[in-house]
């Protein structure tokens, strides 16, 4: 798992320790710099059944600020922003474990400490009845929906 490096962070930052569902603890550095998602783009990634990244597209790398080498094999929660409540991700995993599609608004953390909002959809990849992993596609959300999600997530922290 890649640790965030304060040297990569751009601007004044806050240091926060994040506890993940698998027990891992990660120190992250968070700024208030937002990167807007460009129109017409989709961020695409795939993971194995355990949630480790197996594929990313160019838009993923550009928005997250990591290289492909830094991303392949690491848990998808490398993007987890501390403003996202744990219960949102519990809902995601509970839905996926039922082999159902999940979607929601997500604030993601960039390598440089900035953030970007997406509307994310995740589906299980079932092949011959077997779970092979997950595909996640993120697209540009409306600011109205982002504001609603932001307000809701604050109540769930």
């Amino acid at each position, binding site marked *: 798992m890649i640790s965030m490096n304060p040297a990569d962070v751009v601007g004044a930052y806050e240091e926060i320790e994040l506890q993940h569902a698998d027990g891992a603890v990660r120190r992250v550095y968070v700024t208030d710099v937002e990167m807007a998602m*460009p*129109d*017409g*783009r*989709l961020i*695409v990634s*795939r993971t194995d059944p355990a949630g480790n990244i197996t594929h990313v*597209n*160019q*838009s993923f790398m550009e928005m997250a600020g990591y290289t492909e080498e830094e991303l392949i094999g690491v848990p998808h929660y490398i993007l987890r922003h501390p403003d996202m409540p744990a219960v949102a991700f519990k809902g995601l995993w509970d839905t996926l474990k039922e082999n159902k*599609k999940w*979607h929601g608004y997500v604030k993601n953390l960039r390598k440089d400490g900035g953030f970007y909002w997406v*509307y994310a*959809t*995740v*589906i299980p*990849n079932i*092949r011959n009845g077997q779970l092979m992993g997950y*595909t*996640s*596609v993120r*697209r*540009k*959300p*409306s*600011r*109205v*929906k982002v504001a609603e999600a932001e307000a809701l997530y604050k109540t769930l922290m």
Partner: protein
Amino acid sequence: MTYNFTVSPDFNPNHLSGWFIFNTWLQKTLDTGIHLELYDDFDSQRRAIGDNKFDLIYANPYDASVLVRRKGFVPLVSPRDKSDEAIIAVRADSAITSVEELKAGLRISSTDDPDVNMMCMIMLEPADLTVNNTLTKQSDSYVIVAKDLIRGDSDVGFFLEETYNELSNVIRSQLRTLVHSQIQLINHVLLAGPGLAHKRDEIQGLLTDMGGCEKSKGVLDSLGFDAWDIVDQEDTEFMIDLMDTLET
């Protein structure tokens, strides 16, 4: 035995004769009868597909999902560097410069192309626009979509990028691209049905070798393709998963 072949109705009209040339070449090369049937619209083609009429289909990504997952079709090849992208255009003199400026009540002109309509509606999401707060006029062709825009009968038009780029200069000079998709992972694919799947390797070999001789290269040119690339099952499954995530 004669096999039946059809092509997704969103093919570029400039390449209509190319599909007949390709079909003739394929019959001769495979030494078997193949009947090509083209459709003007998606609904009538889907009814024929529902009746299991076809053994070979050049399918758009939307229909490929159903054909592979529900009807047992297998992927053969896709045209090289031809990902499906969409454009939302406005009239050249429109005051609108970004998607976020669009408002509820937006008048959309589109065709019945399911991929393009899905991609374009996704590109309208940042403005909180959906099928429920917009008005859509569906037309038979992209030229009519363009004319609707030029006449001021619609505010935005949905186009397949390839077709938009091949509109006449006179038409295109009166339009402006508001936003275009950069998905890069969605493309048409040639699929073989269960009755033709036993020839999968043979057809893939023949098609990927088409660039090797002058005559078959000319057939490719008539389709507007540089080459065919083999598509394996997992490539197609991935694209179908991707399409599935977009249908929300």
